[in-house]
């Protein structure tokens, strides 16, 4: 028991060290400090560094928790966010039929890797439950919509 505790302590200690080191490198622990930058070597005026990201949209990363909690959330997240932001998914309000044809669109037209049938069902379960049509109005209770 005491041996396990020692290992635990070691692991926790090491983990904490890495976290502190990471934050340290990120500047979190040394805000507003100055770092030493060695003088630039006197080579012939190097061409101005071209930043290929200049003018591009800011980087964007979503987390699983950005989708509402529900069964099959993780599977849905990792399937969709390879290409799409969570905001686009959340802006939709579709019947199961239309979610189904949305997956067809992605696989057939946008070269999404095919999904296993059982996973497709699980993703559809999640999307249809979390993002059904929400907009109310004359079009929302159509007598011809089964």
């Amino acid at each position, binding site marked *: 028991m005491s041996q396990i505790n020692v290992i635990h302590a070691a692991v926790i200690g090491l983990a904490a060290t890495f976290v502190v080191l990471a934050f340290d490198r990120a500047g979190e622990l040394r805000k507003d400090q100055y770092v030493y930058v060695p003088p630039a070597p006197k080579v012939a005026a190097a061409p101005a560094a071209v930043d290929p990201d200049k003018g591009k949209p800011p980087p*964007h990363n979503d987390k699983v928790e950005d989708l509402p909690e529900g069964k099959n959330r993780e599977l849905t997240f990792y399937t969709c966010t390879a290409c799409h932001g969570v905001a686009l998914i959340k802006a939709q309000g579709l019947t199961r039929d239309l979610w189904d044809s949305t997956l067809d*669109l992605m696989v057939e037209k946008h*070269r999404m890797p095919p999904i296993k049938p059982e996973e497709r069902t699980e993703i559809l379960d999640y999307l249809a439950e979390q993002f059904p*049509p929400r*907009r109310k109005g004359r079009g929302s209770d*159509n007598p011809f919509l089964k």
Partner: protein
Amino acid sequence: MPRSGTTKASRRNVLKGVGMATIGASLPPVGSALAQGAPAAKGPKLLDMEGKAKLAVLGDKPLVAETQAELLDDNVTPTAKLFIRNNGQVPDVTGDPKAWKVKIDGEVNTPMEISVGDLMSKFPAVTYQLMLECGGNGRSFFTPEARGNQWTNGGAGCPMWTGVRLADVLKAAGLKSSAVYIGSYGADPTLAGDTDKPSISRGVPIAKAMEEHTLIAFKLNGQDMPLIHGAPVRLVIPGWPASVSTKWLKRVWVRDKEHDGPGMGGFSYRVPKKPIVPGSKGDEKDMAILESMPVRSVITFPADGTRLTSRKLDLRGHAWAGDFDIKTVDISTDYGVTWKPAKVDAPANKYAWQNFSASIELPTTGYYEVWAKATDSKGVTQPFQAANWNPQGYGANPINRIRVLVES
């Protein structure tokens, strides 16, 4: 003298080195409302990007942002306020822009690969004020929801574009009699990061490609084309869904049949030729390509939700109708019971939007909706609610409305 000694560490750059994916995951994404200290009031997330105004973000991946109605107020849309729509990732565009090459091939006598420098020196440059409008503009007005980015009316803008006429370039290549359509390709990788297939490739019939306002553009409002808007060169094919105005233009393929690239088939950029039950799956066979964009009006002043201290209201806005002109704009403050014509200006040139204005005396204090309804030169007007529902939501152009409160 080279800078040396101490330099303030840029937290963002250091973070880049550590890896955004790990530590960045716990921080608010750059550009979030939180990061810019915007009020926590409900509303769209606002864009935080160098050179761009605080547009309403519809999606971050790919970046899609629309211009709020009140930001569309300028007669000529400033670059900072022009909407953003991407179908793939933004490509790396480095090096000399004049060395960028555009290929012209297919049904032409002399296929060529022409540099931007040669485009600029060999063909006359023209400048026009031209509408650019997302095919899905107005989609959020559909009930039930249609699939895609939920645009209000802000997937549109009318800046000044400078470029050479696509017609001049196609004539130089020599169109064969078999040429009926073009398909165009940009350098943007797909959302998954593939560069071996186009993220989208749309096109127009040869007559539209040869129209004198169809440009290979290299300047936007007199400045070099910004990367996000298609640097170094893009197509501008005004009046039609903006997805044909290919950014980061690499190739114009002259076809002997209707172009069939990604974005040309199925329900994409198509409207029903036979009405579909709203909310149903529909049938692809009932769809036809959306060409000229529908008639639309937007009140840009005052903003929706304005409190007025006087019953007198001077309003203004813009109206446009794809390939056509605006004939009239009518204003109602009583839910369409009565209408009053607004003053409508002539366009700066064909394919520019038209400004309208009206001076209205509201009868009492209290709550009013102010409606605007444009009618085009064919006599086609805006419906009271989004019509011709379709699964991907094209062609929604209901009358525009703002809400005001006249306080005593």
